């Protein structure tokens, strides 16, 4: 795989090349950094830590039509998925999250919608040089320049971006834009190491997950769950902003006699999550739901797929309205072990 340099002066041309496809990148909209389609002439905004909402929407839309039908009818009409997407400026944690979620969507059943969208997306990552206050990716197997899930990694070297192809898709992208790129020198790679090491140094928060996955089942009845869930509002902020959360709900939506079956993100923190038709809910309160969130990420997923379903992006900590802090919860878990 090749590594190339992109001088920042050529950045607009580089972006211009990509806008021929469906290009998604962080942009400032309504004073907020968010992933959004980049129209021609628009610039991605890369000088920020990370978007509030992760880009999982691109492969796992918050609302997705599975098929359409008529009430009382018998035919279904499935949407066509064939548009290629380039996700530019994705942070390593978010890219890693997709690799983690892939396991679920290709486990007992290959989810055709998810698989197709994954196929259609090219992930162009941007290594972190200024991690956020609540980042803890190294604790859970990631890092500021992790390449997992990326097709291409960009590292900001000041005047240049270093572009490293990770996959064939990334290689193809380098080929397509070759005329804008320069060859790398050794100094560039050293510089890259420096940038990444410095970034890693700046990460303040950490937790050693050693022992947590195996220990969690033993804490099922521990009083810590009551403590950490008491203030939970039961909103979906932590899960909707989590790049690895992937629960969904399937609904038939009807208007008049037209219907569609669609799926939408669901959140294990919602009261109606796992609510049975009978009215019984095996997770009747915020306690069980909070416990489920942590267990799902740090135990069930590890059991099943041998990986923690948390990438340490810190979003849930940043935006929890009542300061429920997953690192603090994990610390309490460790203490209780």
């Amino acid at each position: 795989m090749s590594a190339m340099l992109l001088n920042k002066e050529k950045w607009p041309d580089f972006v211009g090349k990509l806008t021929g496809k469906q290009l998604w990148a962080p942009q400032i909209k309504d004073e907020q950094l968010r992933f959004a389609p980049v129209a021609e002439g628009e610039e991605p905004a890369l000088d920020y830590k990370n978007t509030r909402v992760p880009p999982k929407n691109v492969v796992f839309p918050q609302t997705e039509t599975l098929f359409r039908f008529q009430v009382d009818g018998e035919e279904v009409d499935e949407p066509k998925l064939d548009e290629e997407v380039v996700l530019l400026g994705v942070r390593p944690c978010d890219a890693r999250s997709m690799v983690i979620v892939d396991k679920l969507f290709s486990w007992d059943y290959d989810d055709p919608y998810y698989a197709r969208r994954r196929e259609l997306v090219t992930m162009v990552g941007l290594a972190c040089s200024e991690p956020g206050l609540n980042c803890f990716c190294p604790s859970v197997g990631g890092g500021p320049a992790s390449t997992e899930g990326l097709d291409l990694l960009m590292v900001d070297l000041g005047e240049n971006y270093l572009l490293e192809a990770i996959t064939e898709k990334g290689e193809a992208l380098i080929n397509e834009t070759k005329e804008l790129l320069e060859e790398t020198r050794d100094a560039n790679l050293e510089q890259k190491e420096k940038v990444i090491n410095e970034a890693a140094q700046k990460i303040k928060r950490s937790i050693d997950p050693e022992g947590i996955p195996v220990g969690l089942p033993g804490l099922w009845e521990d009083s810590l769950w009551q403590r950490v869930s008491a203030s939970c509002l039961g909103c979906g902020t932590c899960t909707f902003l989590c790049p690895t959360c992937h629960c969904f709900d399937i609904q038939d939506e009807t208007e008049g006699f037209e219907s569609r079956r669609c799926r939408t993100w669901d959140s294990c923190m919602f009261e109606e999550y796992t609510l049975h038709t009978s009215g019984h809910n095996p997770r009747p309160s915020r306690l069980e739901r909070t416990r489920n969130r942590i267990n799902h990420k740090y135990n069930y997923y590890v059991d099943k797929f041998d990986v923690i379903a948390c990438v340490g992006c810190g979003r849930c900590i940043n935006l929890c309205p009542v300061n429920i802090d997953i690192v603090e919860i994990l610390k309490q878990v460790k203490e209780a072990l």
Partner: protein
Amino acid sequence: MTDKPKVGVYICHCGINISSTVDVEAVEEFALKLPSVKVARTYSYMCSDPGQALIKEDIKEQGLNRIVVASCSPRMHEPTFRKAIQEAGLNPYFLEMANIREQCSWVHEETEEATAKAKKLITASVAKVRLLEALEAKEVDAEPAALVIGAGIAGIQAALDIADAGFKTYLVEKTPSVGGRMAQLDKTFPTLDCSACILTPKMVDCASHPNIELLSYSEVEEIGGYIGNFDVKVRKKARYVDFDKCTGCGECAAECRVANRIPNEFDQGMGKRSAIYLPFPQAVPAKYTIDPENCLYLSKGKCGKSPKCQDVCGAEAINFEQEDEIVEFKVGAIIVATGFDPFDASRKPEYGYDDYPNVITGMEMERLVSASGPTGGKVMISNGEEEIEPKEIAFIKCVGSRDESVGNEYCSRVCCMYTAKQAHLIRDKLPDANIRIYYMDVRAFGKGYEEFYDRVRRENVRYIRGNPSEIFKRGNKLVVKAENTLTSTPVEDEVDMVVLGVGLEPRAEMRKVMDLLRLSQSPDKFFLEAHPKLRPVDTATDGVFLAGCCQGPKDIPDTVAQAKGAASSALIPLARGKVTIDAQVAEVNEATCRGCGFCVEICPYTAIEMTTVNRFGHEVEVARVNEALCKGCGSCSAACLSDSIQPKSFRDRQILPQIAALGVLK
């Protein structure tokens, strides 16, 4: 589980009323393509027997379970088609009508637009009918008894009719005697029957009727329940006289230390009574009552050495220890006959009622001319200086009626005639008196009224058109200042006596009854009937009926007629022994109700109350609908934030698809 909906759509030509504007064949073709529609047909008159037969046949043969009839307004034929589908074995509430006549073919000219609209309306009806639920009109037993509130002529008549029909009747009267206003009257117009002579037998009847339980000197305290099953609580006020022991001899009253010192209500305060009293000689029941406010013993704790009444009562009926008693019973229907108050003439200060003793009201005049009145029927009046027999007499009509300045726009309906009657009575007693009647209009609409008015005019009673503006004193005379509007001349007549033809007003205390029975007032402040023309004795509360002047001013024949009407209405549930409760009522989902009570606040029928239920070990408050009181208006539902109370057949889940169906068709 309900079956999958199989809808039949029936499109009526209505002769050519619909089909000349709506392309019914095109609509039929369209309807067949709608979801769940198995059959669509057109027919010349769907409401005709063959039209209905068509529907019934399809229900039986094609297994239809939901019916849409696209024809005239549901206000017209909904009952017809409900009955038809019920006869074919379907639940009558599995019907929805699309109004393609009144609201389509008759109001749109172009076939294209009318047809397009008919399609939309049918689409919406199909969308709703698929989701309708089977409903059952419930029946509950009705208590075979009635309550009549107020024992004036209206209440007496209503009670007698119900009792005569064989049902127990509770007749509650606030004052110590039945009889009401009519008992105070002297003669009645236009026949000049003696009021007491025709009323007294009825009063006696109702006291002795085996089916009537007379609760005099009593007030209704609480009414709960609903038609067929009202729970009534009545307070029998303490009379301080043992009802059973009192013989009505009257010795107590004669001996009372405050005898002849207390203004007698029955005589409009013109006569005097004792603290222990019988309101009037013919009072029923003929039992004495102590007025606790004026009785020295009861109000001050001391009456000489010992109360004289107690001393003289041979029957030992006086009991100062007596307390109010609460009586409870159940009834199936209620008649409100609480009557009226005469207009308070003080509210027209220009007429000097408060200033001059010789300005009196019509009601006072009744007592003055009555042989049993304070003067024994002699027309004598004080002019402020001395008692005189008036020579110059003026009547003023419409005092407190048809008068926006006092808030009464209505006509009191009796003043024209009672004034004429009183003029006639005075003419009888004082052949030489000069009698003038100031009037705006003369309304002599009843049977024999115009004739009577003519007769009075021929008896040298002068009718002067013009309402007086002022009455003032000049010497020992009163001056009536007016303008004769027929001749446009100002008039200043000096008279000895003025009779104010006061109108009728709602009872001052009617609010209490309103609250007890959830009644409303019409703009004139009298009780509001359910419909001014077609349900004049009904109220918005099922099982509660109105009789007499509480509903609006009436003369005696109208009052009696209405009382009989109210009685016959009240007899319906009693005679049937059952009441049918509307099926389209609201229902609470107790699992989702959050107990905020918004619906309780809103319901105009107090059909909703909070009740405590046990939700998995926790006591929680939820709303519950009393189906017998609910009218299905749905006002509660629109305010329910958790969507937990829903009127059947008009549930959100039935209406929202209708909305959607109207939106999707372009």
